[in-house]
């Protein structure tokens, strides 16, 4: 028996019928990849579940809210891009955030801070330099970014930090040494996070009330902010306490090059 005849036009018609619609996820994930839309999911952290939004350029929002609707409403107000709920934060991103929260500052974790004022971005990037287990005053950030008089504006910028925890605004405290407020749930949460990072918030506030601003070592004759890792290494026996940078200098101490306590003193 012979094969059936197939004409060229039948071949062409069959090929034309091979066009198919793209998968439904293609358009949204493409728009996310170029940063025109965001995806979000809930990530488990040491302070409980937080909502995280991201796109191809980086993490855009992190917030602690009771439900998806609240998160979407806040994202809509602050950023306004299309936002899509997905099952989970992608494995690599979740690991990067976890490592950053655990104190690893070298882990690559891009942030999408487009549309934010340069001053705000400078404040957030400076806050990123504060190591886990240490704190810096608002005035320190102001001086470090070259705006020593903008202490209050630094506080406002940190209150608007779109990615708290990742940008550790909880490590920035009042210039009088008291812990101060916190955007992600108030002073109690700030205290809780700092304690989880290895600080003793009660001791910090006790020192602050006593007017102690700097620690010095009488062997190295270097003075630091009290939570600087070099200050914390000094044994009780060798520790000197100072109420001001001027007093430290007058006693013949020079400023630590790591925590740069002079920046805290310079701010207005």
């Amino acid at each position: 028996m012979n094969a059936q005849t197939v004409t060229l036009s039948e071949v062409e018609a069959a090929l034309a019928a091979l066009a198919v619609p793209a998968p439904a996820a293609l358009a949204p994930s493409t728009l996310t990849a170029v940063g025109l839309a965001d995806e979000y999911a809930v990530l488990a952290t040491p302070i409980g579940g937080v909502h995280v939004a991201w796109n191809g350029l980086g993490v855009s929002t992190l917030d602690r809210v009771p439900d998806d609707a609240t998160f979407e409403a806040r994202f809509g107000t602050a950023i306004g891009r299309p936002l899509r709920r997905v099952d989970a934060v992608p494995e690599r991103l979740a690991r990067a955030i976890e490592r950053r929260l655990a104190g690893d500052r070298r882990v690559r974790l891009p942030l999408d801070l487009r549309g934010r004022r340069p001053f705000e971005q400078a404040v957030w990037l400076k806050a990123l330099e504060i190591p886990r287990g240490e704190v810096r005053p608002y005035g320190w950030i102001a001086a470090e970014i070259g705006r020593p008089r903008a202490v209050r504006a630094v506080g406002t910028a940190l209150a608007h930090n779109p990615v708290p925890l990742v940008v550790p605004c909880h490590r920035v405290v009042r210039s009088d040494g008291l812990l101060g407020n916190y955007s992600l749930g108030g002073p109690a949460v700030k205290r809780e996070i700092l304690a989880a990072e290895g600080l003793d918030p009660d001791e910090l506030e006790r020192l602050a009330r006593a007017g102690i601003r700097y620690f010095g070592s009488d062997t190295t004759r270097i003075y630091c902010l009290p939570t600087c890792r070099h200050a914390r290494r000094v044994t009780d026996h060798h520790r000197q306490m100072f109420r001001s940078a001027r007093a430290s200098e007058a006693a013949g101490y020079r400023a630590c090059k790591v925590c740069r306590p002079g920046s805290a003193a310079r701010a207005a």
Partner: protein
Amino acid sequence: MDDTLPAALAIDLDAAFERLVRSHQDRLYSIALRVLGDPRDAEEVTQDALVRAYRAIAGYEPRRIRELQLRPWLAAILINLCRNKTRKHRPALVPLDTTDAAAESQRTPPQLRSGDPRGSPHEAALRRDGARHWAGLLATLPDRYRTPVVLRHVDGLSYDEMATVLGRPEGTLKAQVHRGLAQLRVAAEQATRPDREEMTA
């Protein structure tokens, strides 16, 4: 096709890019699927091509954007990415999809596949020759025929446009499409041979 799109992209890329995605994603995905054979690879390559297009346009002068021939330009980006993909995948000459289709055609009696066993042989052939069957035949073509055949007959590009996409002369492309179609036709006829059907029945 949307003639106002390049002008809109030139004015505001971010505002118009979704329109570009919506109006080209199906054709780009279809090309990628039929060239690569694997749906996941096709989805990945299509997204990658659209992202690259976005970045390229972001760096272009408005005049250059307004003059873009989006259909061949996007196809060219996609085909380059498909090439990289197949190069990495060597020596997988026949996509998984084909073996699935072949396995299924051996498992399923022709009567079940054709639906109505009493229809004319011609109608039966048309019904049986569904997308899976033809995708399987297409996958057996060598790359140099398959890609032009897909661009011409799945996507509907002109030979003029294909020449810019593939960087080959129109005459060469016409010959390659012609040979590709002829080979498909022979393969399709062989697939309808009764002895083969007896074997699978």
